[in-house]
């Protein structure tokens, strides 16, 4: 095998609270019992994955002023679960999504450095931000932060965390730190020595220009939603080009889209299965809810198997709380109507058609080929796989696709180092004492 063969990176997303997680399947198990997390993490490690990824929730979603009840609800706190998973895995990276808006740098830097020690160098932090007062109602600070400030706070937050991680010398001597900035003015002594990876790996998710810039300036991994070859290549080229101005090489930032997959014995069988899964993901109730999210009105009287409403979306709807809104609802509604008319689709079929998120469908051989092509075409450095079943949704991929990737020489057969940085081919950050 040529050493020039491009190696891909793979991560596993725990399919908890997510509108694509199919809980009605008889194989679906608890989204909260530790055994579920243990199963998926052990499966990912058996597949020699780079890391295991947990999302975060800070307020339960609402629809029309009531708690949303159709999707999986309830999840554990990420860093705590990952500390426990460190006991039942040896090499797998452990990535927690933690909000930079409703935390403070000293406490979070300490928790992350602790996880890096407890896992012997496998910790990662997916930095996300929030600005809405809805989430803020659970926190001391409330909804104080302007939308425009969320990335300046996040950038200063990450920079401050790095100062704290660098405040001990590499030989283990604590030194006092002082940080004076726009968002934080803190000083003292950090309680945790420099961790095995130097700094835990920093992941960033977010596609806005600000988000891309933030990633290029400071992240080790970008978690994107660009699951198609074309948009993936555009994003990849754009973000990699931004690195130079920060004195960084293209290899210093790994681009990993979150993708779904459906496997069958043949491509045709996989397509059939994918259609069935879409029907499970978009139940009649979920189809109406998706419609209400665009229309901003109570549409419960409509038949999900009937046509779309003639009426236009209501003005300035705030029906949905706790998730990103759909944008220009009039335009979306017009597009949905046109599609429905053209193809003769019902409400449910239209929602299935417009919200499709399955990225890779086919036999194991086909999916392995697609993934390889994606990476070879500079559309990604690897993938964060989002299974639709908890916790067994990765079993088939690890048993049937990973060996094919290994045969092709595009994915490791064994871990070559102990830390997540070593899996990713990222150097330990230079100590800036």
């Amino acid at each position: 095998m040529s050493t020039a063969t491009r190696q891909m990176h793979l991560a596993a997303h725990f399919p908890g609270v997510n509108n694509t997680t199919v809980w009605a399947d008889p194989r679906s198990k608890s989204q909260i019992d530790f055994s579920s997390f243990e199963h998926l993490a052990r499966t990912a490690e058996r597949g020699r994955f780079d890391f295991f990824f947990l999302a975060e929730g800070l307020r339960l979603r609402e629809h029309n002023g009531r708690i949303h009840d159709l999707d999986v609800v309830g999840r554990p706190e990420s860093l705590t679960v990952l500390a426990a998973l460190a006991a039942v895995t040896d090499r797998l990276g452990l990535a927690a999504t933690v909000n930079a808006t409703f935390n403070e740098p000293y406490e979070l830097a300490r928790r992350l450095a602790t996880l890096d020690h407890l896992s012997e160098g496998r910790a990662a932090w997916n930095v996300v931000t929030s600005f809405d007062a809805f989430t803020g109602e659970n926190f001391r600070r409330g909804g104080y932060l302007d939308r425009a400030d969320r990335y300046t706070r996040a950038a200063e937050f990450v920079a401050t965390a790095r100062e704290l991680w660098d405040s001990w010398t590499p030989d283990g001597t604590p030194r006092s730190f002082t940080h004076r900035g726009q968002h934080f003015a803190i000083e003292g002594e950090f309680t945790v020595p420099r961790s095995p990876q130097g700094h835990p790996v920093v992941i960033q998710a977010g596609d806005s220009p600000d988000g891309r810039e933030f990633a290029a300036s400071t992240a080790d991994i970008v978690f994107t939603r660009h699951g198609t070859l074309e948009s993936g290549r555009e994003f990849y080229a754009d973000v990699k080009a931004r690195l130079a101005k920060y004195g960084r090489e293209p290899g210093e930032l790994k681009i990993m889209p979150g993708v779904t997959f459906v496997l069958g014995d043949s491509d045709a069988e996989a397509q059939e299965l994918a259609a069935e899964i879409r029907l499970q993901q978009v139940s009649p109730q979920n189809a109406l809810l998706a419609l209400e999210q665009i229309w901003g009105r109570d549409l419960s009287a409509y038949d999900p198997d009937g046509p779309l409403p003639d009426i236009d979306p209501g003005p300035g709807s705030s029906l949905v709380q706790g998730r990103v809104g759909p944008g220009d609802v009039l335009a979306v509604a017009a597009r949905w109507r046109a599609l429905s008319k053209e193809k003769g689709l019902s409400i449910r079929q239209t929602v299935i058609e417009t919200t499709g998120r399955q990225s890779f469908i086919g036999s194991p051989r086909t999916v392995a080929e697609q993934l390889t092509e994606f990476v070879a075409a500079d559309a990604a450095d690897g993938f964060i796989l989002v299974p639709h079943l908890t916790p067994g949704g990765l079993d088939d991929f690890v048993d049937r696709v990973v060996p094919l990737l290994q045969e092709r020489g595009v994915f490791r057969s064994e871990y070559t180092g102990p830390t997540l940085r070593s899996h990713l081919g990222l150097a330990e950050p230079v100590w800036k004492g």
Partner: protein
Amino acid sequence: MSSTAPLHLAAEIGGPPRYDPGHYTGLARLAEHGALDFVTLGDSFARPGPDALAVLSRVAPATGRIGLVPTVTTTHTEPFHVSSAVATLDWVSRGRAGWQADVSTTGAEARLFGRRPAAPADELWREAGDSAEAGARLWDSWEDDAEIRDVATGRFIDRDKLHYIDFEGASFTVRGPAIVPRPPQGRPVIVVDGTSGPARETAARHADVVLVRATTPEQAAGARTDLRRRAAAYGRGPGALRVLVALTVDLGDAETAPEPGLESGPPLAAGGSYYRGGPVDLAELITRWHRGGAADGFHLTPITPGRDLERIVNGTVALLQHRSLFRTFYPGGTLREHLGLARPANRYAFEGGRA
């Protein structure tokens, strides 16, 4: 108090800062070998050491029965995050989590956060009480049977069994409900060191287990009576509290020290009284105080964890077990079961008339 009431024993496994998980796992397993109720791991933002809750989460899958009680402070932390983390420790340990609530009184700690100046202890302990109360309500904010997975109606949860807590304290508000479903114990066990005046009121109102410093059985009995009286004033039943005497223990090099007994020791982390002697004499002291009704048990802080915990388990505890004064195995699985504390009914289910 009946002299046959079960004896409860706990041990602190902190000490000089260590960052390797094997160290803490080894100590917790040792304590579990002695069938102790729980181990504590002290924490503070102001001194070297890892995050205690993360350490005990790392320990959870490597142990099976022992209760795990990290210190999590309430002064510079978000109550919502704290309650989520403690509930998660309960999930990953399958019902063995506790939470020792503590406050941060120093300016040095305040400057690590830069959000608020240092405040007096009584104010901070009131806030700690608010944090415990908000936590308890968040843990109740999902009824136990809220998850229904009803395929016919497409509903994963019964939203009527999830509750906004709308907590309003002097320094924060929390809307709720929790993100983490109600943990296995219903509510993880809250532990408070009730030795100091400002902490005692919070302990009486919110704690399941209270640690007190005492150098005589009379003093311990007095503190216990006082705590139970105060708890009753908050409408709590007499059986709702376990009062443990906090002792820092130096088992030295000798089987029996020349002058075993209690003394005013150096100012040690756990703030307990200081015992120096042999494991056998410690067993005698525990027996005497417990039989006399002075305490429900003891929280022992080994002055040198590796050495002294081993002597506590293989010496003191073994002797107590031999004399049938302490359990030899765990009859239950959760920390509440070890402590003989009931799993709390859910206040919101109760309000809804479904309990």
